[in-house]
């Protein structure tokens, strides 16, 4: 069987990329073309219109597409979760200084950020903070971080910046901070333009990040791909393979970035500030076979967050059909 699978080049596409590049899909008799997509919207449209057979996708975007809230509606299934956590909130160095947080503890950072956000809103020049798509855990993590400190999304200007453009946007001052997946926070720190202020894993522990989204028509044909993903997840979850995985992801055909920066996220040891020490963050990005099982609780969390962000009203009845742990278990 030949499959066209889309992804957006990010560290958390690791399991899908490894499934193909390490030969696990070939071992299951699959011929896979991995297609790097320039935006989530493009990936969603191609998937919804049948030009892709499956994709690495923001979990909330898969849900939004499934519910007909975003793009052309398509019945999707998510039989595997590709990653948990992996985001970080990174602020410009001037904003980090203005925060003057008492400590690096989440509560202190949130309080300081909320204080500055409210002050800037009162002055009529709100902070401009970036997410990666309206339907993303990144959007919800901003909301939670601001709420934790006593502020809200209403106090800031939330914009979308594609991950590869975040570092330049921060450097130019067009945005004051961003919440983005690995490795882009490390890229900003390494470039000397940003300070990691909070890990997504601290803001929303166990946050559902990316899923494998398939058109519902793939339901009966997903087993070989799911078996390959299990093997790939096992391989990716082994710390002994992190260096090889970082090299694979860093290749020009995928992320095209320094493997050393990718390795920080995989190993859970990140530099928070330019020139700073490596800080342990074991659950910063979690890959591995146990993470593959899509968790209904995570789905419920997403629906709540969508409602809190004003993206959906109530609990849509169709939501429950998206996560299909049964298909993974049966594969």
């Amino acid at each position, binding site marked *: 069987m030949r499959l066209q699978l889309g992804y957006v080049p990010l560290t958390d596409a690791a399991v899908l990329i490894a499934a193909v590049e390490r030969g696990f899909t070939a071992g299951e008799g699959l011929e896979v073309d991995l297609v790097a997509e*320039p*935006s*989530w*919207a*493009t990936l969603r*449209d*191609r998937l919804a*219109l*049948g*030009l892709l057979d499956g994709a690495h996708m923001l979990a909330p975007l898969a849900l939004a597409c499934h519910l007909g809230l*975003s*793009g*052309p*509606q398509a019945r999707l299934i998510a039989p595997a979760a590709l990653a948990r956590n992996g985001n970080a909130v990174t602020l410009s160095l001037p904003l980090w200084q203005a925060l003057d947080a008492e400590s690096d503890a989440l509560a202190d950072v949130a309080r300081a950020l909320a204080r500055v956000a409210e002050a800037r809103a009162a002055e009529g020049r*709100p902070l401009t903070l970036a*997410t*990666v*798509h*309206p339907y993303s855990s990144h959007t919800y993590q901003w909301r939670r971080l601001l709420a934790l400190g006593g502020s809200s999304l209403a106090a800031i*200007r*939330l*914009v*979308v*910046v*594609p991950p*590869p*453009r975040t570092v*330049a*946007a921060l450097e*130019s001052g*067009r945005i004051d901070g961003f919440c983005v997946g690995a490795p882009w926070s490390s890229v900003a720190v390494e470039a000397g333009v940003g300070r990691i202020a909070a890990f997504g894993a601290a803001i929303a522990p166990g946050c559902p990040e990316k899923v494998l989204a398939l058109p519902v028509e793939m339901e009966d044909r997903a087993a070989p791909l799911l078996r390959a993903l299990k093997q790939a997840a096992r391989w990716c979850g082994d710390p002994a393979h992190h260096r090889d995985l970082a090299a694979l992801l860093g290749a020009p055909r995928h992320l095209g970035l320094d493997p050393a920066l990718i390795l920080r996220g995989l190993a859970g040891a990140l530099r928070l500030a330019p020139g700073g020490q490596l800080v342990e963050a074991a659950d910063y990005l979690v890959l591995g076979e146990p993470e593959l099982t899509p968790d209904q609780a995570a789905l419920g969390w997403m629906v709540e967050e969508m409602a809190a*962000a*004003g*993206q959906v009203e109530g609990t849509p009845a169709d939501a429950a059909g998206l996560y299909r742990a049964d298909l993974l278990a049966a594969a």
Partner: protein
Amino acid sequence: MPDRATSSPAAPAPSPGEPLTIAVVDPSRARAAILEEGLRAVEGARVVVIPDTADLLDRLSALSPDVVVIHLESPSRDLLEQMFGVSRLVERPVAMFVDRTDAPMMQAAVDAGISAYIVDGLRAERIKPIIEIAILRFNAFARLQRELTEAKSELADRKLIERAKGILMSAKGLTEDEAYKQLRRKAMNEKRKIVDIARAIVTAADLLG
């Protein structure tokens, strides 16, 4: 960027006959120009090409277009979804894409590499010609590009064969016609293309010369 959240409530979408502002966003300037030219044929349309750069959001907010046609290759699409969907940076609500009931057209558009964002309430009969023109133009551009690539490689092949002929002529004292016949015979015997034989001769001559 002006914060328009507090400005007047949603203005109505233009009715038939009223002028329509179409913004074209494309990472390729050549393709944007070809699309722009085509869209000028839409009656009552004002077409504005906006470069796909970091200040895209500000420029679009200032223009407040009725329709945005953007290439699928552009990473700025996610930015537009935020702008039109959640924030209130534009005065009028914008719905994404073509008529959802018209699946074949949507598929043709995505196939051609187009997405469009359209002011809510704009009538389907006004949108359809815009999308149709965009599909035709984008497909024509893709064809032109393919032909250009083919023409370039054809030209390079011809140059290589000319050089190989010249080498044979001076090395073996052949006429041009004889040199070409030798090349062709060698290619036929080895079941290879003439240009491959020519490349081997040129490479060898470069090494030996």
